[in-house]
């Protein structure tokens, strides 16, 4: 990575306080364009909260978040998505009663140009754009091996497939930066391995920058270029997978006694 390029995303001293609890404490980090970064830490460390801060679900108590050098603090989640950040959720949040295809189609929403009149009279750009959306959605589903399930109801998919659908849906929003919250949770090693390949592939294919939270170390160490380690809302280490694996502070905090033995 070139040292002098402006980072795609940068946070400056971001903190979030819930009642008396400081869930995120002076969080400072950056992601350069094209990087694949991991965010790890024990349960309750504040990882998901950081995602919620970046995507505008929570507003930081203090601090600044810059996307392409511009502040996104105070923007609504949908505005942030429109500026190019899409995410998945740790506790899957699909449109569960809708078909797999519709789940993806919805995410094209911010790129649709036809207006209300064109909708109601089915004229102008309506048919052209709708057809394009359907076609692109099916392509995305194919990448995630979901094309055969396109017309099934999302809630009936197996767990691993639901996680993949969440990623497909996030990609449909055509983000620059993709945030994945525990994408491998609940997957078996085989599925995790496939997921890893998929993440690699979509990154190069879609020119993405990715930030991912994950507890599965094989996945994190396998694909991330840099890793941030969080504990009690504070960054305790940062570095390449090799550096992190050998960092005694991380071993103590994250891997706990089990690693010491």
């Amino acid at each position, binding site marked *: 990575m070139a040292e002098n390029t402006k980072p795609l995303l940068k946070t400056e001293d971001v903190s979030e306080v819930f009642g008396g609890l400081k869930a995120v404490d002076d969080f400072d980090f950056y992601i350069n364009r094209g990087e694949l970064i991991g965010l790890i830490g024990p349960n309750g460390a504040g990882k*998901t909260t950081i995602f*919620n801060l970046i995507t505008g*679900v*929570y507003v930081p108590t203090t601090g600044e978040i810059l996307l392409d050098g511009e502040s996104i603090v105070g923007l609504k989640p949908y505005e942030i998505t429109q500026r190019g950040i899409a995410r998945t*959720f740790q506790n899957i949040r699909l449109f569960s009663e809708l078909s797999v295809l519709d789940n993806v189609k919805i995410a094209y929403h911010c790129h649709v140009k036809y207006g209300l009149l064109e909708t109601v009279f089915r004229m102008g750009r309506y048919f052209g754009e709708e057809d394009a959306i359907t076609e692109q959605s099916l392509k995305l589903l194919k990448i995630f091996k979901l094309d055969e399930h396109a017309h099934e109801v999302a809630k009936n998919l197996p767990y691993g497939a639901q996680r993949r659908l969440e990623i497909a849906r996030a990609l449909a929003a055509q983000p620059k930066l993709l945030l994945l919250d525990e994408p491998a949770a609940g997957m078996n090693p085989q599925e995790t391995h496939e997921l890893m390949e998929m993440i690699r592939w979509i990154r190069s294919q879609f020119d993405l920058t990715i930030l991912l939270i994950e507890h599965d170390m094989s996945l994190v160490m396998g694909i991330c270029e840099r890793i941030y380690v969080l504990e009690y809302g504070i960054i305790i280490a940062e570095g390449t997978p090799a550096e992190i694996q050998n960092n005694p502070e991380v071993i103590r905090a994250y891997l706990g006694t089990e690693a010491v033995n």
Partner: protein
Amino acid sequence: MDFLHQFIQQLINGVSLGSIYALIALGYTMIYGIIKLINFAHGDIYMVGAYLGFFGVTAAGLPILPSLLISMLVTGCLGMVVEKLAYKPLRHAPRISLLITAIGVSFFLEYAGMYFVTATPRTFPNTGLNFAFDVAGFIINGQQLMIFAITIILMAILTYIVQKTKLGKAMRAASFDTETAQLMGIDSDRVISMTFFIGSSLAAAAGVLVGVYYNTIDPLMGIMPGLKAFVAAVLGGIGILPGAVVGGIILGVIEALVAGFLSSTFRDAAAFAILILVLLVKPSGLFGKNTNEKV
């Protein structure tokens, strides 16, 4: 001086009306606190209570107090039955299903009531309370005194139950977090059942008191007070018992003032305007804490 005099007189009227709202609101708030349901049928439970009191006094020829007690007991049981039959099967259903069911129960009680007792309003007989005091120029009548007395007694009993008994503790635990309470070994079915009993009997008391106060009752009498008591509960902060009482009294006073100084046609609008104002400004109510959803 004249204005002030009228103001205070309306205040007295408002507090007695507000006490009635408070009694109904308590049930709303308790039930909402524990199963997160706006029990639309609560106003109709209150109507049933009024009729039972009426029949106690007329058909059975009992004095007013025993009628009130019997009505509370029977209506409380009715509340439990409604919960068992209509709400319990939907404990894990979406909340909208539960809400629609409550609307259904409400209709059922109203029109089944109409079928059995006819739509004709009934007039409460003289209960020996038709006297009035003149305190420094302000009129307080016997009915109002009875309302104050009964409301205070019932609230004292309720406070005792909620604060001091095992049941009360279980109720508070369950309304704080039903699932955890269950894990801690609280029989939530029983607690919910008892909550309906208590809430419904308070509504019954309010029904009988209203019968005594306004003299007439009819099968649809529960709709408006039911909605307004809900407003009172929201105003005080839903799920919070003292909030329901304060909310009820504030609402009663505001209504009396609007009716006294503006026009009685705007009385009902006042309650709803308050509701919307509260929901927009502080949805958690006067005594509630704001919470945000975890994502």
